[in-house]
């Protein structure tokens, strides 16, 4: 059969098989599709918006799908000052996010209370929810957020999701 088109189905390539570990495959899928829950509480949220816009383009790291529904998000980016009054709402949204989930504390306020050493401000979101990556800055530049996201991706690479699922399953049998 005479080949006339330069584009054709190549059974030798399409049919090829890749061997990998299921942990690696799951990590690869998770880390390249981190849907953020944008918890924008103060000026850090402006930088978060810049990171999402065209100039910095967080979509290059697969994290452009800002989900305003916690049920659909993987990583909560706490961007801004967490007042005690808001802290309960942040915690509730975190609890509503399905596993696996991660948290980025963006900026000085979310990491430690920042310059707000006052009666009204929670001194770091890590007092309420577990934080994976802290980003310094007041506010951090979008590049810093992207670096934090890449650090989180590297952290996800080191996880063992299947092994942990097995462990949980065995623990549930024993319980």
């Amino acid at each position, binding site marked *: 059969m005479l080949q006339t088109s330069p584009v054709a189905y190549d059974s030798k390539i399409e049919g090829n098989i890749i061997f990998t570990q299921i942990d690696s495959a799951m990590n690869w899928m998770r880390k390249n599709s981190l849907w953020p829950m944008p918890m924008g509480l103060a000026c850090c949220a402006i930088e978060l918006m810049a990171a999402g816009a065209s100039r910095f383009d967080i979509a290059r790291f697969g994290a452009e799908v800002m989900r305003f529904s916690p049920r659909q998000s993987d990583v909560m980016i706490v961007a801004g000052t967490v007042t005690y*009054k808001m802290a*309960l709402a942040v915690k509730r949204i975190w609890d509503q996010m399905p596993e696996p989930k991660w948290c980025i504390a963006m900026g000085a306020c979310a990491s430690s209370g920042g310059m707000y*050493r*006052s*009666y009204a401000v929670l001194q770091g979101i890590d007092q309420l929810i577990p934080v994976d990556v802290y980003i310094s800055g007041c506010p951090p530049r979008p590049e810093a957020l992207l670096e934090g996201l890449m650090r989180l991706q590297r952290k996800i690479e080191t996880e063992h999701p299947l092994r942990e699922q097995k462990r949980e399953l065995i623990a549930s049998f024993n319980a």
Partner: protein
Amino acid sequence: MAAASLNSVVSAIQAKFQVAQKTEFRGETTLTVERTEIKDLCAFCKDTLGFAMLLDLSGVDNFGTEPRFEVVYELYQMDTDAHLRLKIAVSEDALEVPSVITIWPTADWHEREAFDMYGITFTGHPDLRRILMWDGYPFFPLRKDFPLAGRASDMPDVAFSKAAPLAGGPFVTVPSTATTKDREPRSREQS
């Protein structure tokens, strides 16, 4: 023009209400009036004198003096661009002030804030809840005897608070023309 109309405003108020003190400072007129008369006086200011707008309502804590608290009303007349400030003294033993929400609806959140920060109760307010802190917070944080760092409190499932680590602070900037090194914020004890 504003000053002339304000003089007639003040004399009209003095003819009908008790004015304990009248202060002029940089063209701003402040009248210290009676707490019991404040609602009638505010209605008079709005309906008869044309102060249609309540710019601000706030509390003041003069800790250590008696009466301890003040409530300040900042009135504005749009036609003549005239400002008028009314002050009432509130004792700590009777922390009750008549609400002016029926005169200016904007007093709603201002009065809630004064209640939240100082614990001043506004009688007649339809919804006197805390506005900045959460319901059930046990302190009034803008009182002078309340520390900046805050105090520990715990309300399960609602909120908690801890005293913030001040690490030698609060840090204040001293305004001067000195170099940045001398001007940078430092704690009051060190400066």
